[in-house]
């Protein structure tokens, strides 16, 4: 019985780890592709690619979160 409650507690804490991984992914995606967009902007002289990069990065991050944690 002790083992079961241990397992249950660990499931909940693995939920914690999910939260931090999701948070890390959701930050990394827009940051990385916003940076890529910034590079493109600097090379091309435009100013539209930074927001496009952020949105694309965010969409990709959401996809990663869905693939890793949404489908069970």
């Amino acid at each position, binding site marked *: 019985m002790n083992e079961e409650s*241990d397992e249950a507690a660990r499931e909940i804490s693995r939920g914690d780890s999910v939260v931090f991984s999701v948070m890390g992914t959701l930050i990394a995606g827009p940051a*990385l592709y916003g940076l890529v967009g910034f590079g493109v902007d600097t090379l091309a002289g435009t100013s539209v690619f930074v927001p496009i990069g952020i949105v694309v990065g965010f969409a990709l991050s959401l996809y990663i979160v869905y693939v890793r944690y949404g489908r069970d």
Partner: protein
Amino acid sequence: MTLITFAPTQVLAGLSAAEGNGFHPPTLSEFFPGQLFGAGTWWGPSRINLIGLLMAGLLALFFVSAFRKPGVVPGRLQMLGEMGVTFVRSQIIDEVIGKQGRRFLPYLVTLFFMVFVLNIAGVLPTLNMAGTAVIGVPMFLAGVSWLVFNVVGVQTHGLGGYLRNNLFPPGVPKPLYLLLTPIEAISTFVLRPVTLTIRLMANMMAGHLMLVLFFAASSYLLFEAQPALKPLGVAAVAMGFAFTLFEILVAGLQAYIFTLLTALYIGGAMSEAH
């Protein structure tokens, strides 16, 4: 009772900072005091370095004395030491990694108490500066944690297996990997130590700035401003007290969070059952 000795020290520090002509709020130069000796050399310690060394020395002294001659019936120091170790073992390791995480007990106990003791130096009288408020110590501790969880992951799954688990989420059409893998790489290998570092440093830096602000304000309002502002000075001292209590809570909490996250990353690297 001890809190009553904190405030006068802070107020006196605020007094000397104010120097009687106008209010001097704290600036970032708080965190860059000059080297106390060996100025200009790479090893010349500043006040903050010496505080870190002092607290680390006290911590080592405590644990060595507590466990020097362990008895079956523990003495008081040993009981305190055991409480500390048991806290990390049962609340952090067993909860998060499970029994196979016990081999990380020495590292996680050291990590927890190191961060806690350095943090608490921010509210100790005459020290008044957390050893973790400058980026060096949090960066080093986060770097060590990063090394530990990566080495554990590679040991458990092999280099290829570990990288594949982390960088390539399963069930994704192949061309998308080109876009997704950089995100995964950054979020796992770059963001984790960076957030560990910044979370700890920013909390301690902000807490220190707030404490200096409250006590500098209270000394200015009580001693140098117009008499009509004196009640505000009293309010500032009261806020300083309350914030000192809050900083003690934050010191413990940040130590717990740092250690918990390290344990989570280690456990995640070991299991990886995605």
